């Protein structure tokens, strides 16, 4: 027998939640810009994507640092959940960082297949991180 209780609280500190909102918006926007570039070959789209992804990396880096601390000191959150969140944030950040370098290439090479794939990885990882970070947590009660 186990008792679970909805606390109504999310695991993220409000400031942490605000920081996560940036990559959560910026990486998908970067993906949309990449798609627009690949569709149109109009360079302003890859320029947009470069800034959006750089912004995602900047805030994503802060989120990553916080997630590492949160994984070490989970507090009321379960460690498994904290680690899953950390993994999502790490994938998001690293893919974004590599993608920033990819986007520093000139012309078509700034996106191409690698840039598109990395943007998709960052976007999916950001959405997963958001889904974990923003969902209500259940505190597992004392079992048995």
């Amino acid at each position, binding site marked *: 027998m186990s008792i679970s209780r909805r606390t109504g609280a999310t695991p993220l500190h409000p400031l942490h939640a605000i920081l996560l909102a940036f990559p959560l918006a910026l990486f998908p926007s970067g993906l949309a810009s990449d798609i627009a570039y690949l569709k149109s070959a109009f360079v302003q789209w890859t*320029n947009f994507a470069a800034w959006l992804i750089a912004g995602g990396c900047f805030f994503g880096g802060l989120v990553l640092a916080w*997630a590492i601390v949160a994984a070490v000191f989970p507090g009321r959150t379960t460690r498994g959940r904290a680690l899953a969140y950390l993994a999502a944030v790490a994938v998001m950040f690293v893919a974004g960082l590599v993608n*920033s*370098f990819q986007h*520093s*290439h*000139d012309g*078509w*090479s*700034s996106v191409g297949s690698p840039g598109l794939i990395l943007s998709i990885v960052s976007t999916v990882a950001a959405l997963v991180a958001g889904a974990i970070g923003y969902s209500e947590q259940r505190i597992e009660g004392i079992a048995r």
Partner: protein
Amino acid sequence: MSARWLLLAASVLALQGCGRSDPGLDQTGAGKPPLPDQQQTLLPPMKIAKPAGWGDAVPTAPKGFKVTALATDLKVPRQMLVLPNGDILVAEGAGGAQAPKVRPKDIIAGYIKAQGKTKVKGGNRITLLRDADGDGRAEVKETLIEGLNAPYGLAFVDGQLYVANQDALLRFPFQPGQTKVTAKGVEVTKLPSRINHHWTKSLVASADGTKLYVGIGSNSNVGERGLDVEEDRATVWEIDRLTGAHRPLAQGIRNPTALAIEPTTNALWAVVNERDELGPQLVPDYLTAVRDGAFYGWPYSYWGQNVDPRVHPQKPDMVAKATIPDYALGSHVAALGVSFARDGGFGGDFREGVFVGQHGSWNRQDLSGYKVVWIPFAGGRPNGKPVDFVTGFLDGQKARGRPVGVAFDPAKRILLIADDLANTVWRIAPVR
């Protein structure tokens, strides 16, 4: 899976991906140079030679030549012109400041490249140097014209001094002997200056003096600012000297940084800087006769039909008609100066040929260029491998100086080299 591990993996990937040069690969000379496979690594290979200063050292010339600093404390000397009376004009300036930084990369790369440049602000002026006693030091150093806008190319024809600012070709009434020009410049024609990614406007007059040729660089490395801003770029203009009417003589010629007339054929030649970020040994810069109506490939292809995948949409019809340049100078050497020997040159091995000033590389780990080479000619065509003529600009991994313009003066039999890192004009003369 920890973030730290991923970061480590990413940085290892980035470093390993930089690409290495093959030191045995000789990419100079006439004919097709070896062109390695393209390497678009995550980070381009980058090596900036930090400024070291000359101290008591001077550049190294071949045995039998003496090197002196003709003038020091200049403000970013670029190109020079030797006047009929032996006076030397030096264009000082640095342009391109208004080229917008549109990506995070532009800011970071700009900062990194600035580490290899002088901190002195461009003079925006023409300085006159006179060494009447021939001791190798200019006893007269006067500001001839000031208030210019990043002047670069210079020409003197029929009582008119032509100055190619970064945005316009100006002429000033001028007689050799003058040390001050007070007359306001007259605009011969505007020159393409929107963005001005490659801002230098090289200039030479045709042998008969009726035409002026201006080299206009591309507005990007390889079209990444959009091809609509490349209208009138990567071209050499032929300008009617009296009317200012102009037409493109050649196109697709990425950055023709210096022009010169070959004295036996009166043909126009250019040194041209090719594209970056395809690997440490792509693409070789070149020296070429500028053929009327020719298209040299930029941005669609290089060295003839080698397609650059970064340009989209690609243009197979343009690639098909791309002209192959005459002579490879090596990848990323950044040739910025060209001057033919005239009237027997220095004699001996340096009788017929051309001096090429190489500013030096950033886009390869092994520093390349940073010297002045001699390319022998015969019958108005290159005839042999380049020979190092003036070296010593590198001190290990640091740069004492960086050569830009070169000018051979057949009357005095001296070679002048503008050094825009040490802000010096060097004079190379045979020991008598």
